[in-house]
């Protein structure tokens, strides 16, 4: 009896539910580390925004608010479809769950494509930070610093989107193989949690970078 049972959960757990609970706690702790990681950047942003309020106000007009808002909506929709993917697999509806994963993945692609156009425009205007900064239109001193924050924060966030896409593709592949059902869907939920934090971080990045007042 125990042998046949051992197949669906690791040997040191008592049951699938036990393993799921442990995985979920682990995932939440991982999300804490993500918040601490971005926390450093947010604190840095806060300090320099406080030091150079005029510069931040002037520089942020270079960002495309429409594209930023569009991307915010795209990510919010992707969070909804991700949550639906989990809800469907909990009801054993593999087909709909897979569809939701595909939509989530496409939203992530859309986000990155829009980001690509935004980045291209910035690079075209010589707004790459540091040694690469060639823009002369901005009047405020240290304007490059704003774009340092812009590129570092959205860059690390974009990297998280890419990792998220890889994870979504991975669970799609596993779902296709029949790994998940209403009884066992841990990995889907954990990737979902990760995807929500990626979304949540953008929810903070958008107003901080695009809507400075």
């Amino acid at each position, binding site marked *: 009896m125990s042998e046949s049972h051992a197949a669906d959960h690791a040997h040191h757990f008592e049951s699938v539910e036990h393993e799921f609970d442990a995985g979920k706690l682990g995932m939440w702790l991982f999300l804490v580390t993500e918040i601490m990681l971005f926390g450093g950047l947010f604190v*840095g942003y806060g300090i320099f925004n406080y030091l150079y309020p005029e510069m931040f106000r002037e520089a942020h007009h270079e960002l495309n608010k429409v594209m930023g808002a569009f991307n915010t909506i795209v990510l919010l929709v992707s969070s909804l479809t991700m949550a639906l993917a989990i809800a469907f697999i909990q009801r054993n509806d593999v087909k709909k769950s897979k569809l939701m994963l595909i939509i989530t993945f496409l939203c992530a692609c859309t986000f990155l494509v829009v980001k690509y156009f935004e980045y291209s425009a910035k690079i075209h205007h010589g707004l790459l930070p540091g040694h690469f900064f060639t823009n002369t239109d901005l009047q405020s001193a240290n304007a*490059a610093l704003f774009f340092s924050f812009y590129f570092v924060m959205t860059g690390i966030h974009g990297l998280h989107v890419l990792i998220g896409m890889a994870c979504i593709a991975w669970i799609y592949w596993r779902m296709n193989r029949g790994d998940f059902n209403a009884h066992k869907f841990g990995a889907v939920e954990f990737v979902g949690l990760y995807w929500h934090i990626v979304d949540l971080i953008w929810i903070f990045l958008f107003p901080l970078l695009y809507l400075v007042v």
Partner: protein
Amino acid sequence: MAHAANINFYQASHGWKSWLFTLDHKRIGMMYIVTTLLSFLIGGIFALLVRIELFSPGETIMSAATYNKLFTLHGAVMVFWFIIPSIPGALGNFFLPIMIGAKDVAFPRLNLFSYYLLITGMLFNVYSIVTGPIPDTGWTFYTPYSIQNSGAVISMVMGVFIMGFSSILTGLNFIVTVHKLRCPGMTWYRMPLFVWAIYGTSILQVMATPVLGITLLLLTIERYAGIGFFDPKLGGDPVLFQHFFWFYSHPAVYIMVLPAMGIISEIIPTMSQKTIFGYRAIAYSSLGLALVSFLVWGHHMFTSGQSELANFIFSLLTMATAVPSAVKMYNWSATIYKGSVSLTTPMLYALGFLFTFGIGGLTGITLGALSIDMHFHDTYFVVAHFHYVMMGGTAIALFAGLFYWFPKMTGKMYNECIGKLSFWIFFVGFNTTFIAQFVLGVNGMPRRYFDYLPMYTNWNRVSTVGSWLIGTAALLIVGNLFMSFFRGAKAPANPWNGKSLEWQAESPPVLENFAHTPTVTAGPYEYGVKHG
């Protein structure tokens, strides 16, 4: 599966692959022990070279530039290769699951991954050393010097970044293990204090290390692209780097010393055959230290141009860390009082800890006082203080723990005679080395110079001779453990009459730790308590 329950974890499978790809927390723990002890010897060689250079004023055996590289390597190797991964990775991995009656940590694969992240980080550092030029920034990588430095800073810093993730994932794994895998009857207040200490450490690893990660990442981008966060020319602020760095690195001091305190909390009741005094006070003081350690980072920057108010608050909070530490010291002392103390090697090291950590802690309060710190900042007083905490605290407790649990881990007894000898040589050598540095610091000798005024010669010689004694003791300790592993007498399951769960397991433990999942009915130190 039936036979695996009865054979020990060394014999459960064979060949080098069975070690390199193992998911067994005990084997991973043994791999950490070998890795971190080797790192300790490497870092120790750097330390000995640094001390030899300081034997006489002027150039003794190396140039100023070489000296700067060597003390950087000494610091980086000792902190990132040895002290931070040693106790959680080695003894935590081996004993935390056994002590709570679990078969393994919550995520065995992640556990192995953490180990290889550590190795990968080390390889990055080795790459930095081999290709050179070796960075001479000191282990703190302060900006702006680390940005302008011609050394291979990026590979060094990225190595530390990767090792940070190893530390985060180990902590994450342990927190989940403690929450989810305690055996029946193992309530929170029946957990051994070592588990409480590792739990507190894990919280710090998970919460603080990501901040180091982003800091080092920003430093790397700054070096590559000049983004200006830490560069005043571009509107940035180098002190921000110090804030970020110490926001991690002060809690990191407690990542180093909390598990050490956990080991001492195990050895003292067992070797005194007496219930621990104030179990809950010790348990909560571990969490208290973890919390307070997040609020004191500014005391590293009293002279960096912080506001007076910030200095005052950080100074006050620094004093507050003395309270939970002192709670532990009093409770350990009270546990020994009227106990039947056996002065075995681990107990000698534990008693040595009380003495040296006591000095380390008290001089910490000295440095936390604003006016005194203005004077002692950047002198050998600081060097002596943190060596009393790091080496006189963490390293000495690690040795205590290694001897204490050696019979359990290997099924062999270490050589008691050489063990005691190693303690006395270490203890005398350690105090000789670093008391001399306290005196040098009070007399105003600045740290991090390869040269000094002739007036400091005598105490520097005392310190260098002391370092040779430490080197001898280190070889005796590692040699004793290594030889006993192959030739030691067979150890019984419970040589010290310990009450916690690991002593109820076989020596060495079987593959899944216990033949049957244990059920716990009492606390871990209930000596002289009768159970119906």
